[in-house]
């Protein structure tokens, strides 16, 4: 890890750690619930990538907009959406953020400017440029942030959008979560250029490369990227190098044809949560007791979320026909 810790920020570090741990535990339980058949459809877990969502969203203010793909549980939680509301959505219940209509891939919380939750690779990239366009149009200085995987940079929507974002100077930050694989395809087998951030060259756009396992590094890079967007409408393409511990979705193998168990174990040594915890202990900025109670509180919170989701009701059948059009 490159960044050095600043004792004055202890509270902030604890918060980052707490958020990452919350996501980790939430996802572990979501996976278990999927195995029990309580969660259906495609369920893409974020385990291993927690530092990217937590570090980058920590650099935003509430009025900034966040748009993510289908692997977005972590982003929603980092944005402050209640675990209850996210878990209930995974369960398809009425108390879910999207009233049970969206599910795991389509989490929305407009009250928090969290605009999904999108399932077509690349399709949400222009949406983020659109919300950024609106912010500028309305004379606000809110920034839009778009999260997507490294495999999405090869699709047309990425190219068309980055060109317009740079050409029109839109206040948007594009964050590529490079977890090395798009389903079973390694970056090197899908992209002619292996440094994803280099793709910024075609748009004369600012670029950043960051260790996506170092939450503080992500926060720092995001802070300056957001500042560029907010202060002078300059978009940035950030590549955060991270890793996905689980299979592409709960329906996919964790390793096998496309990656080895060894590679997986090796990558887990970079664990973002364990990494920050160890550094805080070294720097005597956290005690084992403090961490244990943090963990205990989170376990409680997720247990509560699971209970809520279990007990919550299904949407009434009439909801099938609501929200097709506005009324």
């Amino acid at each position, binding site marked *: 890890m490159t960044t050095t810790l600043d004792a004055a920020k202890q509270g902030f570090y604890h918060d980052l750690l707490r958020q990452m741990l919350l996501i980790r535990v939430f996802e572990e339980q979501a996976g278990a619930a999927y195995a029990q058949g309580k969660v259906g459809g495609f369920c893409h877990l974020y385990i291993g990538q927690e530092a990217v969502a937590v570090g980058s969203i920590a650099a935003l203010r509430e009025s900034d*907009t966040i*748009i993510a793909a289908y692997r977005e549980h972590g982003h929603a939680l980092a944005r402050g959406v209640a675990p209850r509301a996210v878990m209930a959505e995974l369960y398809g219940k009425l108390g*879910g*953020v*999207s*009233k*049970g*209509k*969206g599910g795991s891939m*389509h989490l*929305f*919380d*407009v009250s928090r400017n969290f*605009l*999904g*939750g*999108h*399932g*077509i690779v690349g*399709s*949400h*990239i*222009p*949406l*983020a*440029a*659109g*919300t*950024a*366009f*609106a*912010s500028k*149009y*309305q004379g606000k200085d809110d920034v839009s942030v778009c999260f997507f995987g490294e495999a999405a940079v090869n699709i*047309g*929507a990425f*190219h*068309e*959008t980055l*060109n*317009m974002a740079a*050409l*029109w100077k839109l206040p948007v930050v594009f964050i590529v979560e490079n977890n090395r694989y798009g389903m079973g395809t390694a970056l090197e087998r899908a992209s002619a250029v292996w440094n994803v951030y280099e793709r910024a060259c075609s748009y004369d756009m600012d670029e950043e490369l960051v260790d996506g396992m170092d939450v503080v590094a992500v926060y720092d890079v995001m802070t300056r990227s957001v500042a560029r967007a907010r202060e002078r409408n300059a978009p940035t393409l950030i590549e955060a190098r991270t890793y996905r511990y689980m299979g592409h979705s709960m329906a996919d193998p964790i390793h096998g044809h496309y990656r080895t168990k060894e590679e997986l174990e090796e990558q887990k040594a970079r664990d973002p949560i364990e990494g920050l915890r160890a550094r805080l202990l070294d720097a005597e900025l956290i005690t084992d007791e403090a961490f244990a109670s943090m963990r205990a509180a989170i376990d409680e919170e997720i247990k509560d979320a699971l209970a809520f989701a279990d007990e919550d009701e299904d949407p009434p059948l009439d909801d099938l026909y*609501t*929200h*097709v*059009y*506005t009324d």
Partner: protein
Amino acid sequence: MPAITYRDALNQALEEEMERDSDVFLMGEEVGVYQGAYKVSRGLLEKFGDQRVVDTPIAELGFAGIGVGAAMAGLRPVIEFMTWNFALLAIDQIVNSAAKLHYMSGGQVRVPVVFRGPGGSALQLAAQHSQAFESWYAHIPGLKVVAPATPYDAKGLLKSSIRDDNPIVFIEGEMLYNTKGEVPEEEYTVPLGQADVKRAGDDVTLVCHSKTVAVALKASERLSEELGVSAEVVDLRTIRPLDIDTIANSVAKTNRCVIIEDGWPFCGVGAQVVDDVQRVAFDDLDAPIVRVTGADVPMPYNKHLERAAKPNPDRVIAAVRQVTYQA
């Protein structure tokens, strides 16, 4: 009332709505400096400036998505496709984003965007530039589909579309831009979802929309002169939602129905009208419903072949002979 062109009627609708609501903006290829490929946006750049009249790169998928994103953020974008043929590149944003976001988000997200531009065949533009996609968009729940035939309807329906909170597919007749018709000077709108009886009659119902309304009207004149047949001409105006009541009322009176459209026959708009009419007016029908459509071929360049491919009064009259058993 002054008679103005369909083009100018659309231009007035855009200008009036942009005047009325600063959230309305126009984006597309050549809409600004070039004054619009078909001059529908003439003068708007000069009047509203380049933040509200935005020229785009050739990137249909990208700018359609930017329009959807801007709508999610509360603006009312009017996205112009130079022609609907090119919208095939953007169709993922129209179908997977615009049409579904309100539903997927449990009613939180609204997408008040209007996608507009010329559709259907023109003159000798050949296969890739001569296509009518009304039936495709009308297939999609979440979209409303509008296809005006006259300057009066064009202006009134575009104003209603811009004010509607749902994504609208507004298909203009490329061959209609220069046609003239009376348009009141005072403010008015035409509600979506209402067909219009363009000519009253007793013996047969001619269902049509956009360009084929003129074909039906010409045919109806000749029908009365040549065959003493009194045809009622029903202009759908809005394809989705479809105003089946107006059609059924007419068929209840005439007991015979011919449907005319510019597009291809298989799963065309007329097929749906047949489906509805035979169900709601089964006992009213004295003859099978006959359709007059564009030939079931890619449009050829040669002008004689092209003419033969399009609906015309002769073919409508032949169809009426069929349904009135005067063959």
